[in-house]
């Protein structure tokens, strides 16, 4: 029998961080308000008391400075977990991430590893308007040298970090702030996740729905509803956005011959554009219908709820798109 425990996404993240701190002397958490405040989203609440200032470091509002310092500490033998409060401020550290973390190994001819893990809150959904609702996974996934992960489920939120810390190369982990309060069950017997692979969350034969991040639960809800009217969808959670697990994606689409890609990020030059292109390049002759994408509307995210909702694909959009692709009335 599988033992089942129901926890929030926030608690899952916290357990992951705590476990990392317990398991490795070299691990420490640094970020804005991670200590005394308890974490901007209360993910690290109580950890300062538990582990002390040396392990839980509050930093000033200097994204480039402290992300760069995290990178430097990683180069010099530590295993820092750098928390950038949200991806919205991630741009201030972009120079460090792109020009240092992603580049040093190659530029030094393989001499300098950067085993840093950078966690970033991400996503839309809390009426925070244009500057605080970004889905910038594609921006980071564009950069060779980075490993980019997206924790679209509780199980990944809980277990991704441990694997990320094992990487000799820099890892960006996207966490989704709108999911923090959602409670889900994580089977207790799952103690590790394979972050090098996409995960087929639901097996099906009629169409492949490929998604990540916030899209995972939305697509699963849509898939369940579609199942009730006899449409058998396969849901693929990408989980690792760079390097993409092409094998899983192509295998799924080769089986179903139809692909719908769902993401919150802006549609142009996005993860879905990339996947769509690869499907076309690699398995064109498996396609029985054009690849369809549901992605963010290309607009700075507006404040009012109804407009915010309209900015990204919702469950019903997914259901309708699938029906349309399958000629289902």
């Amino acid at each position, binding site marked *: 029998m599988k033992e089942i425990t129901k926890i929030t996404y926030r608690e899952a993240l916290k357990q992951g961080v705590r476990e990392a701190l317990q398991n490795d002397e070299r691990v420490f958490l640094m970020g804005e308000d991670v200590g005394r405040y308890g974490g901007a989203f209360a993910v690290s609440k109580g950890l300062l008391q538990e582990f002390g200032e040396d392990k839980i470091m509050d930093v000033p509002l200097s994204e480039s400075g402290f992300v760069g310092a995290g990178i430097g500490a990683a180069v010099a033998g530590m295993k820092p977990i750098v928390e950038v409060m949200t991806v919205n401020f991630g741009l201030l550290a972009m120079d460090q991430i792109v020009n240092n973390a992603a580049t040093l190994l190659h530029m030094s001819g393989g001499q300098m590893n950067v085993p840093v893990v950078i966690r970033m809150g991400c996503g839309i959904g809390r009426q925070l308007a244009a500057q605080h609702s970004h889905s910038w996974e594609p921006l980071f996934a564009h950069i060779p040298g980075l490993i980019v992960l997206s924790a679209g489920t509780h199980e990944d939120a809980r277990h991704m970090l441990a694997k990320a810390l094992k990487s000799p190369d820099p890892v960006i982990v996207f966490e989704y702030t709108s999911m923090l309060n959602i409670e889900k069950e994580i089977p207790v017997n799952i103690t590790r996740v394979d972050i090098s692979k996409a995960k087929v969350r639901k097996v099906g*034969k009629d169409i492949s729905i490929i998604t990540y991040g916030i899209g995972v639960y939305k697509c699963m809800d849509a898939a369940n509803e579609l199942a009730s009217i*006899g449409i058998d969808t396969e849901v693929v959670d990408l989980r690792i956005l760079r390097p993409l697990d092409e094998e899983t994606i192509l295998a799924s689409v080769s089986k179903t*011959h139809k692909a719908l890609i769902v993401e919150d990020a802006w549609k142009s030059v996005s993860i879905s554009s990339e996947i769509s292109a690869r499907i076309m390049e690699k398995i064109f*002759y498996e*396609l*029985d219908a054009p690849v369809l994408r549901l992605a963010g509307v290309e607009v700075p995210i507006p404040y009012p709820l109804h407009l915010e909702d309209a900015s990204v694909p919702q469950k019903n959009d997914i259901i309708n798109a699938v029906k349309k692709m399958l*000629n289902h009335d």
Partner: protein
Amino acid sequence: MIEFVMPSLGADMEDGTLVEWRKKKGDTVKRGDIIAEVETQKGLIEIEIFDEAVIEKLLIGPGTKVPVGSPLALINPIHDKAETIVTTTAKKDLIHPIIEKEKTPASPTVSSDDRIKISPLAKRIATENNIDTSTLSGSGENGAITKEDVEKSIAKKLKGALSQEALGTTTEDETASASISIRAAVAAAMSKSNREIPHYYLEKTIDMTKALVLMNKANKERPVKQRLLPAALLIRAVALSLQEVPELNALWDNGLQIRSDINIGFVVSLRKGGIIVPAIPAANLKTIDEIMSALNDIIPRAKALKLRSSELSDSTITMTSIGEGGADSVYGIIYPPQVAIIGFGNISEQPFAENGMLGVRPIVRVTVSADHRATDGLIGSRFLTALNRHLQNPASL
């Protein structure tokens, strides 16, 4: 003597204009001396020399614009040993070659009216099966031809080919082309089946002693024309077993549809490759003799591709039997929309244990490949048990 050339000061510097010579013929220069001033797109730049030398000859005058790598002066290095003229091999590298792009003729434009809207997958299947896509109408979005449309067309083509054969006038060529389309139809059906149907497989070894004894005895008393083959007995036994386990005598079309008539499709291998599966209709209502005479009628026609299309499409289950000397067991692929295929291996003498005694018996390995969406292993197993019971009691067949 060496050439002093227009230096390259950056990949973006293509040429320079000599503004002034700072040195004249006969001057001795040392490393780092400014020898000339050159105007570039970034402004006036002093040009230094890297050798100790005597200026032998100034090659160009002020106001002359020359590309990077062109000789400006000839100089005679002071520490030059035996070297005489060292021509600048670097020159070649300095001037960036302009790669002339070959002009490709514009490709003929295809009028959009002529384009057939077809999915890549459908197009691939059509090509593999020699289907002319211009004859198809599409059921997909905006009338696009889909995989399903092509598969339907393949099935239709096959039936068409066969019913034409049934009229009796077939040339060698027509037979050949029919067998090509049969190969294609088999390919399409089997691919679809393997792709879409989750198969499960069961196997049982059955002692054929009693059945064969009975058959041989019967054959001894019969004229040649009425002799029986084991296949007739097996078909009869399968038909009777299906009466008991009707779930395998069914079609899958958005759910299990059990059929009351038992039409056993019997796999016939064609001499030129491919298989054809004529049906023995209402096999459960026929005696062994009737089944044998049905085989005598239908097999030669099948081999000559002279079947009626109804004889091909009416099967409710398929049975395949490996002839004598062939493989010991066969795991079939279901012919959609059927839900099972029964396979009989070669009947051969094998050690067989019964009641704690080992003996050599003619045995046959029987397999069931069934659609797991439609039934579970228990059903398949029940069928094999029934089949064994009938074959152990051949008198009742």
